[in-house]
């Protein structure tokens, strides 16, 4: 009985106390219910090294550079190297490219990697020692990555490499103007400092012995043998191979290329060697390639930079004969299938030397005598866990079937480490199911203002073609922050408070620290929160009746 009615016979309509609308649980109207979801950002999906890019950008956005760096290090021990040489599949996949320009993920990664070197950040080994011994053959990106991850998991790792210095193709393949050696030194040293035993100048020749003295072996010998082509050549023709030229340069040799250099091939190595020749004083460096630019395996950015540096391209051409001081080129045309066919038209081209960059092969003599290891197409066949047919013998990087990039190799290192760890412990490597992809159509891009990407500074051309100084500069703290904040946070809540604001029923509760909750007592299921979520992190599900 209400207060008013105690005071005598008042008319009914004013006998009730004022009540709150909260008594009316409008949640019962609902046929659909919103829920916060996490979708897989396209950058993460595309990263061969399995980085959680969006998460580290999230840290970087609030200038949490160390936290961001640690997030990268969970998957990839080479942020400063990656930030220079990765071919950025993440940026190709980035949803922001559809809006204006892709987020400069790679440039932020480089900033973080350089910052870590400057600040001396390290990663602690927290796992208990397992007492297990693992041998890694090859100190390239996949070998070092596997060593890094296994060390963090508590295993004792020994890395052997026949070269005098560690880094593999990062040191002996990629020219210094793309990847300065002090960066390689710093990131390799950080891994060694974790307790990895690095035995350089040591060639593993007997795998049987190694397999018996270690609990597991990871092979990462790379692909360091230049593919040869049978080019009819005169006695005085000067023919070299690209891998040897690049590796020799690293070991202090000055290859005698002459002033006019013809490079044969269309991959990144061809461009690397042509650009290197230019820096060594060649006035004319020509890349001879049998197909067209759009069919060239080299990455577009490298082609662009090479052209800027005055490298000439001879598309649709093969070398028919190499003589002294000149070569004979045959023009090609593409048939319906896109395959080049000879035309019978020839042309002379002045060239003091010919460098072959026709691809690289792996030296697999180490596994030739192991019966249970399968070799096909010049590479070692492995399972999904990167184990060869031989129990306890794993392989990764350029010597297994894959795209031959540093990033893929690093991804192999991480994957192999998990498999090896599981194998050593006798457990299964359980991987969480992948979330649904956060595609562009899931976003409400209205809420993102236009913001063009930050351009990285670049060395002026005169210095580029005369020195091996690094071509591309890095971002500074303010531009890195700007670039990180261009991230759209696809598929994951970015804490914009839109859902909390647009609900006509106040049925979104803001819990703080980036957490929200739907108040199901009052949510009518209108779907405005989901429609107005910029990042597509809310989904409507049918209500169970």
């Amino acid at each position, binding site marked *: 009985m209400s207060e008013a009615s105690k005071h005598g016979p008042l008319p009914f*309509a004013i006998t*009730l*106390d*004022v*009540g*709150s*609308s*909260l*008594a*009316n*649980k*409008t949640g019962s*109207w609902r046929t659909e219910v919103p829920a916060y979801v996490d979708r897989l950002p396209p950058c993460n999906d595309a990263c061969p090294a399995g980085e959680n890019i969006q998460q580290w950008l999230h840290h970087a*956005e*609030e200038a949490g550079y160390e936290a961001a760096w640690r997030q990268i290090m969970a998957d990839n021990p080479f942020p400063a190297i990656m930030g220079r040489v990765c071919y950025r599949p993440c940026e190709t996949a980035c949803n922001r490219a559809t809006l204006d320009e892709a987020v400069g993920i790679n440039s932020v990664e480089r900033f973080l990697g350089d910052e870590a070197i400057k600040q001396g950040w390290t990663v602690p080994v927290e796992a208990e020692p397992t007492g297990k011994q693992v041998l890694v053959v090859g100190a390239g990106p996949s070998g070092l990555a596997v060593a890094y991850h296994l060390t963090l998991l508590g295993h004792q790792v020994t890395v052997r490499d026949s070269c005098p210095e560690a880094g593999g193709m990062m040191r002996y393949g990629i020219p210094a103007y793309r990847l300065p050696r002090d960066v390689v030194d710093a990131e390799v040293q950080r891994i060694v400092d974790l307790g990895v035993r690095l035995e350089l100048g040591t060639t593993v020749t007997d795998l049987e012995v190694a397999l018996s003295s270690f609990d597991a072996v990871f092979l990462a010998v790379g692909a360091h043998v230049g593919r040869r082509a049978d080019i009819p050549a005169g006695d005085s023709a000067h023919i070299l191979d690209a891998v040897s030229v690049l590796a020799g340069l690293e070991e202090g040799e000055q290859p005698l290329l002459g002033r006019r250099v013809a490079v044969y091939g269309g991959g990144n190595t061809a461009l690397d060697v042509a650009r290197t020749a230019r820096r060594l004083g060649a006035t004319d460096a020509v890349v001879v390639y049998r197909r067209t630019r759009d069919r060239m395996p080299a990455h577009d950015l490298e082609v662009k930079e090479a052209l800027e540096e005055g490298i000439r391209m001879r598309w649709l051409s093969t070398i028919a004969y190499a003589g002294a001081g000149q070569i004979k080129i045959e023009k090609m045309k593409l048939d319906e299938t896109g395959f080049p066919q000879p035309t019978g038209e020839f042309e002379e081209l002045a060239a003091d030397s010919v460098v072959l960059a026709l691809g690289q092969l792996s030296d697999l003599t180490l596994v030739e005598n192991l019966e249970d290891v399968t070799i096909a197409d010049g590479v070692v066949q492995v399972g999904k866990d990167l184990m060869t047919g031989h129990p306890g013998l794993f392989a990764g990087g350029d010597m297994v079937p894959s795209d031959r990039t540093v990033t893929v190799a690093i991804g192999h290192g991480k994957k192999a480490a998990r498999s090896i760890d599981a194998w050593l412990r006798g457990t299964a490597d359980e991987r969480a199911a992948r979330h649904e992809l956060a595609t562009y159509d899931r976003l409400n891009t*209205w*809420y*993102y*203002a*236009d*913001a063009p990407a930050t351009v990285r500074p670049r060395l002026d051309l005169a210095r580029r073609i005369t020195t091996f100084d690094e071509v591309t500069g890095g971002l500074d703290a303010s531009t890195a922050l*700007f670039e990180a*904040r*261009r*991230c*759209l*946070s696809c598929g994951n809540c*970015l*804490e*914009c*408070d*839109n859902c*909390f*604001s*647009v609900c*006509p*029923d*106040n*049925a979104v509760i*803001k819990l*703080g620290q*980036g957490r929200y909750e739907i*108040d199901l*007592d*009052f949510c*009518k*299921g*209108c*779907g*405005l929160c*989901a*429609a*107005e979520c*910029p990042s597509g992190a809310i989904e*409507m599900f049918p209500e169970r009746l």
Partner: protein
Amino acid sequence: MTQQRVRFYQIGSYAAGNRLLDPDQGSVQADAQRTNSLNSGHRACQGCGEALGARYALDAVMRATGNQMVAVNATGCLEVFSTPYPETAWQVPWLHSLFGNAPAVATGVAAALKAKGRTGVRVVGQGGDGGTVDIGLACLSGMFERNDDVLYICYDNGGYMNTGVQRSGATPHAAATTTTPAVGPEPGNNFGQGKSLPLIAMAHRIPYVATATVADLRDLEYKAKRAMEFRGARYLHVLVPCPLGWRTASNQTIQIARLATETGIFPVFEAEDGEVVGVSKIRRRRPVSDYLEPQGRYAHLFGAAPREDVIARIQAEADRNVRSFGLVDPRCRSMEG
């Protein structure tokens, strides 16, 4: 631009707030301590634009006045769905009298507060477009003309919605309502009729007149706050899409309001002393059909026998808005679609 936007978070965002912002840079709605003037449990339809607009506006006024505010409500959806006796969804002092007299009652409240020396308490009158442009127009014009110290807010959903979607003086041309059905050679609401109350208010030369929509929260909050910086009669006209009357999906309320501004159908501006002083530029201009087609009240203009002629007349109205208010920045993207 009417205001300097916060150009920080996630590189310049149009969202309500962000984890990277200082709390005082966020919108009122992003504040977990906002008033929630209109509380949960109200009986507005799913996705109601008016419920959203009223909370946006009154929460902003509450912050601007330090919670010293009284609201006077005309009859209409907003009153009916918020106060079924004996419940109320209002968490602010709130008063309802009749359909047509809200501006006069608000004037009275302001006069009473002045008599008591409590001029620090501010008065807001509010109603739908029916109560404002039709039934309450005489009282409102009087309130403007006397320059009474009241902010009057009209939540415009273009019709009498809770009584069954009848036409009002704010119903747009060609829109179908139950009293302007989509029949005959000129289906829907007549061209040449209806009125723009923001322009009528400006003609009174009152200190402040502004328009806003639920699609631009920051702008709406700015205008509610700006209005409280003046004394005298002020008028705020807020476009609030109605899923029921406009026959749109409940999750499209904000998107439809956005399209109303991006097509030029609904110009967003502010005026002081009868002169336009600020205009929200169109960001990505769209043809009016993008706005019309998702709405069931314009369904008769599309389909098997589309009425290109009628759509062209509506486009011409939008083009006139763009011209007369200068809605397009020369640097703006061209019309898409």
